[in-house]
């Protein structure tokens, strides 16, 4: 395609978007609504996934050793745990280290626990990691059956719940978004159908003088793309500003927690790019759907 032709198509496409301003507003509104929801959904899902993944990496088994266990038996226990196939690492943690961790993790309130430093009520423990986080449950089960093991703790229940919730939310979100995307496509294809009806005569003359179908299709293609781009402006601004605010404020809470949301840069930009891409696809799809019928003459 020649440059002068491309210029013509761009001009035509923009002119039509402007000419049918009411329908343009309606379909841009539909795209905007859709993309805002898609954006919020994406931010939530990707962050939940990220957090769940982090948590899963962190899943470890804490096998508390009975207080009265002899050193030899402790060594024997370590060997036994290491001999389990799925175990990746075993680390010994004294009860003093355990107490320090506890005090650290509780911050201000943790100071109260420092009273116990003289008379530590906690157990020594083995910190065990499974090679594959999914096998943590099995490993924990095996360790709990060993001698001199007082108690086995692991965060699997917590993580399992998070994953289950994640999947649940994802399915509902996907259904909702699919419905919205189709509504937006439908609205756009109708908008463009109206511009086609208004230009039926023009298309007829174009065909008469030997215009190819792709030549006729281009301005509509551009019109759809423009509608998509216009529709993604507000959603992208909301995502960028909203996520910026979020990433600034969540940091304060994070001091107490061991997970982080995805960093603003590059995550918010990536989501914005994705939203723009979805917007343009919706617009182009809608426009091509409506032109198809009119070209078979």
């Amino acid at each position, binding site marked *: *395609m*020649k440059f*002068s*032709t491309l210029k*013509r198509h761009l001009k035509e496409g923009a002119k039509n978007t402007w000419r049918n301003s009411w329908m343009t507003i309606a379909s841009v509104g539909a795209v905007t609504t859709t993309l805002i929801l898609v954006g919020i959904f994406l931010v939530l899902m990707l962050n939940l996934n990220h957090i769940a993944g982090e948590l899963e990496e962190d899943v470890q088994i804490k096998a508390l050793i009975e207080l009265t266990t002899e050193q030899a038996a402790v060594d024997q226990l370590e060997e036994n745990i290491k001999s389990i196939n799925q175990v990746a690492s075993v680390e010994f943690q004294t009860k003093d280290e355990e107490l320090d961790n506890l005090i650290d993790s509780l911050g201000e309130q943790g100071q109260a626990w420092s009273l116990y430093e003289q008379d530590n009520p906690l157990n020594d423990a083995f910190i065990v990691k499974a090679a594959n986080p999914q096998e943590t449950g099995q490993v924990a089960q095996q360790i709990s059956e060993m001698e001199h093991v007082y108690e086995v703790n692991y965060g699997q229940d917590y993580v399992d719940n998070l994953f289950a919730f994640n999947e649940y939310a994802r399915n509902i979100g996907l259904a909702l978004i699919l419905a919205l995307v189709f509504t937006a496509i439908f609205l756009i294809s109708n908008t463009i159908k109206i511009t086609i009806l208004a230009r039926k*005569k*023009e298309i*007829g*003359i*174009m*065909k*008469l*003088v*030997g*215009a*190819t*179908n792709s*030549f006729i299709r281009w301005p509509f293609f551009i019109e759809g793309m423009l509608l998509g781009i216009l529709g993604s402006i507000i959603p992208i601004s909301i995502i960028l500003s909203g996520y910026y605010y979020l990433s600034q404020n969540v940091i304060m809470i994070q001091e107490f927690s061991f997970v982080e949301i995805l960093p603003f840069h590059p995550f918010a930009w990536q989501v914005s790019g994705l939203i723009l891409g979805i917007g343009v696809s919706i617009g182009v799809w809608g426009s091509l759907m409506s032109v198809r019928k009119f070209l078979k*003459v």
Partner: protein
Amino acid sequence: MIEMQNVYMKYPNGVVALNGVSVSIEQGEFVYIVGPSGAGKSTFTKIMFREETPDNGQVIVNNQEVSTLKWKEVPHFRRNIGVVYQDFRLLPKLTVYENIAFALEVIEESPRNIRKRVMKVLDQVGLKNKARFIPDELSGGEQQRVAIARAIINHPGLLIADEPTGNLDPETSWEIMQLLEDINASGTTVIMATHSQDIVNSIRKRVIAMEDGMIVRDEHRGEYGYEI
């Protein structure tokens, strides 16, 4: 130029528009198509530039078998055929210049050549000083000249005119006929469907008369042959 063999065509509503039409038209001929309304004149012209496709029979235009053209080939096939209608079919919001340039933009002619060629064809149809007017500011005859200019700007080998003088007063009709004769004289085949007895009887050319989808008469330097 044009060869038709036993062309048969029926519209979806059951009307048989062409019922076994065979005809041969040479390059450079000027042919009138006459006959009552509904005789198949329009369909006859439409199958020549593939606006309609016959159900049966062979249609060859410019050495191309029209009914086997693929969708992709149709636009290029049409670029060698000019078409003029009774209702001019100009775009009302574009100027005379833009209306004609449109036919060149569509085939991606370069902007510089477009300007040159449009001015030349405007000169040819005698409308050089009306380039900036919009169709509504012109008389019917002038509008038809614009339509003819648009049809011939690509130097087509074939010009199809479907009642080009149908909306014009007699005097203007003669001017349009003069223009069509000039175009014909330069070698372009002209096929003109018409109801005008005056024109057919005065400017004697080959006459093909159609009735009920069939050619009932085909004579050189013929007469209109119908009472009005």
